[in-house]
C-alpha cells in the first residue's frame, strides 16, 4: 500500500542533510510501529523516497515523500502516529494514498521557494525590473563542459513580496538552485538570507 506524505521541516532541523533526514524518518517509522515494506535483494531498505532533496539550511513547508507499507492503515492514523514520534522540527501535514504508477521523483516539475531578503520593497521591485530587461544567462559548469542557462527559462515566475521574493523554479535539466536565483537577483549573497521551500509541484 503506497502513501503520499506531505511534511514540513523547520527550526534548527534545517541544518541537517538529506541523508540525515532519510535516517530520521526510517527510525521514526520504526518507533511508530508502522509495518514498513522492504526492498528485495542483498541489502534490504525500507521502501520510501523523498521527492526532492532539500539543501542544508533550507526550511520547507511542503516536502513530499512516497511510503510503502505492508498493509493498509488509515492515512489519519499514519499521520498521528508519526507526529507523536518525530523530533520537533519535522511535522507530517498530510497523508493520502498514492495511486500514481510513476515514481514521485520523476513527477516533480516545479518548486516554489520563498526567499527572505532584508531589503525594502522598492529596492526589490527595482531589481526585478532590471532582471526583466536584462534577461541574464547563467553559465554553469557541468561534467560535459560549460552550459548556458536562460534565467527566465528556468524561473517561471518571480514575485516581490514583503521582505523577499517568491519564485517558481522549473526542475529538470536546465534548473537553477534557489541560491543561484538569489545571487542573480541581488548580485551577491547576503549572510542573513533565508530559503523556505513552499511547495513541490508535480506533473
Amino acid at each position, binding site marked *: 500500500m503506497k502513501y503520499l506524505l506531505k511534511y514540513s521541516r523547520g527550526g*534548527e*532541523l534545517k*541544518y*541537517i*542533510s538529506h*541523508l*540525515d533526514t532519510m*535516517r*530520521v524518518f*526510517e*527510525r*521514526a*517509522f*520504526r*518507533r511508530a510501529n508502522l*509495518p*514498513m515494506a*522492504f526492498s528485495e535483494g*542483498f*541489502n*534490504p*531498505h*525500507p521502501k520510501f523516497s523523498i521527492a526532492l532533496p532539500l539543501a*542544508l*539550511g533550507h526550511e520547507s513547508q511542503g516536502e513530499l515523500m512516497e511510503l510503502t507499507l505492508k498493509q493498509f492503515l488509515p492515512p489519519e492514523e499514519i499521520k498521528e502516529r508519526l507526529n507523536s*514520534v518525530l*523530533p*520537533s*522540527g519535522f511535522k507530517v501535514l498530510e497523508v493520502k494514498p498514492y495511486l500514481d504508477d510513476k515514481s514521485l521523483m520523476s513527477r516533480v516539475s516545479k518548486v516554489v521557494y520563498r526567499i527572505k531578503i532584508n531589503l525594502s520593497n522598492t529596492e526589490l521591485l527595482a531589481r526585478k525590473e532590471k532582471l526583466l530587461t536584462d534577461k541574464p544567462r547563467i553559465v554553469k559548469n557541468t561534467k560535459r563542459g560549460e552550459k548556458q542557462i536562460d534565467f527566465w527559462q528556468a524561473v517561471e515566475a518571480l514575485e516581490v513580496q514583503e521582505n523577499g521574493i517568491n519564485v517558481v523554479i522549473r526542475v529538470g535539466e536546465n534548473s537553477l538552485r534557489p541560491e543561484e536565483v538569489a545571487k542573480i537577483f541581488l548580485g551577491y549573497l547576503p*549572510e*542573513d538570507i533565508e530559503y523556505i521551500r513552499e511547495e513541490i509541484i508535480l506533473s
Partner: protein
Amino acid sequence: MNFAKLLALVQKPARYLGNELNAVKKPWEKNLVKIAFCFPDLYEVGMSHLGLRILYETVNRRDDALLERVFAPAEDMEKLLREKGYFLFSLENKKPLWEFDLVGFTLQYELSYSNILNMLELGGVEIFAEKRRGWPLVMAGGPGAFNPEPLADFIDFFVLGEGEEVVAEIIEVVKEAKVKGWERNDTLLALAQIPGVYVPKFYRVSYDEAGRLTEFMPLKKDLPVKFTKRIAQGFLSGYSLPSPIVPYLDIVHNRAMVEIMRGCSRGCRFCQAGMIYRPVREKTPELVLAEAEKIMEKTGYEEISLASLSSGDYPYIREVAKKLLDKYQEAGVNISLPSLRIDTFAVDLASELQRVRKATLTFAPEAGTQRMRDIINKGVTEEDLINTVKAAFKAGWQAIKLYFMIGLPYETDEDVAGIIHLAQKVADIGVKEGRVPRGRLKVTVSVSNFVPKPHTPFQWLGIISAEEIKRRQGILEKLAKKDRRLSLKMHDYRTSLLEAALSRADRRIGRVIYRAHKLGAKFDGWQEYFNYELWQKAFLEEGFDLEAYARRSFSLDDRLPWEPFAGGISQRFLKKEYRDAMAGKNTADCREGKCTGCGVCPALEISPVLTGGRKVSEIFA
C-alpha cells in the same frame, strides 16, 4: 551569541545542535550541580562512546544536577569562535565551559590530550589547575586516568574506574560546597576523601634522572598513596542504561548499544583494557533483553550492538541475539557483535546474525607466529584460525580482515614475516575451500605498531625505535607485494611514537603537552592534523627527546610513575606475567574456574559475576 549565524557558516552544523531525539535540556538553575562532559574529539567520535551515554543518563536522572555535552569543535567552528570572540559551549543550554561547576574530560586515548588544553582555552577556563580560582573544577576519568600524571598540571582531580556511582558522591560534595561557600581547596580536600579520587596538588612527586619514581607523598594527612578504582555495582541491576540520544549525523557507531558484560579476563598481555576493567561481570540475559527493548522503543535504530570487550565470550550470546533477531527482524533491524574471538562459533553466530553477507569478517590473531602469540598470551592457535576462516569462506564470505601488531617484545624478523605467511595461508584456504572467484578474494592485513601501556605486563618496556618500525614495515611490504590477494594496511610509525611517549609519561611531560598546545597541536589522532615535528620540538624545548622518551625501559625493580594508580591490579601479578611472557608460558582465563591472582578482586572486595552458575574458586591476592 547568534547561534543560528554560527551554524550557517560551518560544515555539518548538526554537530552543534544539541536538540537530537532524547537529548535532555534542563533548566539552567542556580542550585543545580552543573557538569560539562567534555569529549576531546569530534561529535561523531564522542557520541559513539558508551561511557558518555551512561553518565548522561545517570546524572540527568537526578533532579539536583545536570550534565551537558561538549565536543571538540571542528577546525571551521574553532576558527569562528576565535574570530568572533565566542566561548566553546555545551550543546544543550549553549553555555560556555566556565559557567559550569564541574568540567569533566574523558581520557580515551593519549592522542586527544592536546585537545583537552585547547577546549579549556576555548571554553574560557584557565588551563593550569594551580592558577584557577573558584569554579569550575576540572576533572578527568576513563582509561587515561590510570596514568594521570602527564595531565596533573591541568586537571584538579581524577577519578579511577567506572563513573556511575562515584559521580553521585562527587555531586553531593559539590552541592554542599556550593551551599556552604567552601574555598576551592577545601572542596578538593573533601573530594580527595572519596575512594578512587586523586587530587594531584595534594601530592609531592619526584623522579630521578632515569624517570623512576622516587617520591610520591601526600601533603595532607589521611590521603592514600595507592588508589583503588571504582566499580559500579548498579551495572548488574540495569542502573547503567545508556542514554538513547539519536544523532542526526552519521556517527562512528550509529546504533543502539546494549552493554552485555564488563571486563575481560582472557589476559592478553598487551591489552590495557583487559587489565583495568577487571573483574568480569556478566548481565543476565533477561536484563540484556529488557534493556534492548527499552532503547529500541525510544530510538527506532536499524541496528542493535551487543557491546563488550569480547562479546563472543558472553555465555548467552546466541540466545540473546536470536531472541532479538526474532523480535526485530520484521522491522529490518540488524544485530551486531563487536570483537569476535577466533573460533567457528563466532562464524556460526555471524552467519546467523547477518542476513546480508556483504560485511567483512574481522579477526585479530595479533601476531604471526605461535611463539609470539604465546608471549602475548593470545590463546589462539594457527589451527583455530585456519578452522575459523575455513568456516567463514564456506559460509560465503569473500573478504576477511586480520589485525596484527609489530614491535611486540622479543619479536624476530621471522615473527614479522609470519604475519604475511599466515595471511597467505588464509588466502589459500579461500581459494581452496571457499571457491571464491580469484578476483573477489580479499584478505586485508591491518598492522599496527605495538605501544606498551601502563598496568600491563609489558609496562616496563619502551617502544622500538622509529628506524626499527620502518625496517619491520619494510619486511611486510616486500612480502605482501608479491601477493595480489593481500591488501596491507600499516599504521603510521610517528603517531605510535607519540602515543608511546604519552602513555607511559610522568608529571614532567605536562610541560611538553602545554608547549605542544601553544605550538598549535590538536586532533593528533587524525592523520590530516598530526604534526610530528611540532611534538618533537615541544619535547626538545622542554629538555626531552621524544623518541628516547618513548623508548625508555624500566627494570622490574624500579618504581614506575603510574604505580600508585594500578586500581587493584597487583605488581606481583604483572611481574609474573612478564616473566611468563619471556618463557612463552600461557596464563588461563579466570572465568574457566581458577583465579590467576591478578589482585583486583581482593583489592575491591568483589568477585567475578558469572552467569549460569559458573564460579571462580579460591580467589587470592
